[in-house]
């Protein structure tokens, strides 16, 4: 009985604390808003980067364009999944949404590695250049993830670490997509390794830090 009284007292307390709230927009719209921020960065990079060179590379090596499409689709799917997971009544299976485009992304990058071994006169990436790619992906992911976590905080993730990890994947995939604007190399094994390390690290760090930020108990 005492416990039931405690429930009733809690309800009265919550009632006295009740303030009108603005209902959240649909997760798809919120994902679109975040992707618009990524698109704005992409437009700026088209102006300051060398988009013509990127298109020439894509024309000569179709696997590069496939990898570009794969990373862009991964960013889109992961952003949608993160915003869906940021609502309490969504199933964790949403976390699998970015899996197919991620397979395309890394699969196409892997094919690129084989091509660079088979085709002579390919401009390969050095370890120093691969480190620059790593720095770009990690550095670009930071502001994108800050925006994403602030937006996700308006929701209520029942599985905050998973939500933040998928959000981190969205940021890393978006950063890897943007990297294509300033990446004058063909894919290579070392390049793929550094990209994978950067994506994994970003997803892990955002899962740890973002998971704590999204935990609201």
């Amino acid at each position, binding site marked *: 009985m005492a416990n039931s009284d405690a429930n009733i007292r809690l*309800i009265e307390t919550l009632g006295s604390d*009740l303030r009108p709230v603005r209902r959240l927009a649909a997760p798809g719209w919120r994902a679109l808003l975040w992707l618009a921020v990524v698109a704005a960065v992409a437009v700026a990079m088209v102006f300051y980067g060398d988009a013509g060179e990127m298109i020439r590379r894509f024309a000569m090596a179709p696997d590069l364009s496939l990898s570009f499409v794969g990373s862009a689709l991964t960013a889109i799917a992961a952003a949608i999944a993160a915003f869906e997971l940021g609502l309490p009544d969504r199933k964790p299976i949403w976390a699998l949404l970015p899996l197919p485009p991620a397979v395309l992304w890394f699969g196409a990058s892997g094919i690129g590695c084989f091509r660079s071994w088979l085709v002579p006169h390919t401009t390969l990436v050095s370890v120093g250049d691969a480190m620059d790619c790593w720095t770009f992906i990690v550095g670009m992911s930071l502001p994108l993830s800050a925006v994403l976590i602030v937006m996700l905080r308006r929701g*209520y993730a029942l599985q905050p670490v998973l939500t933040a990890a998928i959000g981190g994947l969205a940021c890393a995939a978006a950063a890897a997509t943007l990297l294509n604007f300033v990446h004058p190399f063909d894919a290579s094994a070392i390049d793929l390794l550094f990209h994978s390390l950067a994506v994994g690290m970003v997803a892990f760090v955002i899962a740890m830090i973002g998971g704590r930020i999204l935990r609201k108990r």
Partner: protein
Amino acid sequence: MAMSRIDELAPTHERDRRWGLWMAAAQSGDRAAYETLLRECIPFIKTVARKQGVQPDSIDDVVQETLLTVHQARQTYDPSRSFPAWLRTIAQRRAIDGLRSHGRKGAREVHEPDAYENYTDPSGNPELHANRVDESGELGRAVATLPSGQREAVEQLALSERSLDEAAQATGRTTGALKVNLHRALRNLRARMGARN
């Protein structure tokens, strides 16, 4: 009893519609609708918790955690979707959290009802008690021999547990002077008590 549990979770069009409307009203700040909704939800949450395997003595904890989550997450409810489904997912999650925390507590704590009764009270040891009385008398005498400013600082800040501002008001000294005097007093006391021991 089993029938009532099944009935509680079974979707009924009228109840789902009513709960959805109340939650939408709560989002607009309608306290009466909100409190009525939460009260009606309690049996539903208890049924979900029981189905998850929560022990009867922990059911109310799950209810309260769920109500708190509903309050914090109320902006995420979409009136075009089912409110009971939204609530069920939250209650299931909080029930799982409750089970995990119960499991952790069980692994960390040992149930030993005789331990308290068999615990020896140190004050029951006459020798220890006599030593303590002796030490406190020694400390009192040591404080009494301190210069007046230092004694005042110890009495106000350490023994009466006043804040710096209160002590400053009571003594007419600055907070800085009180801090310096307390620091010197403690150093003196440590030296005197240490020398005697």
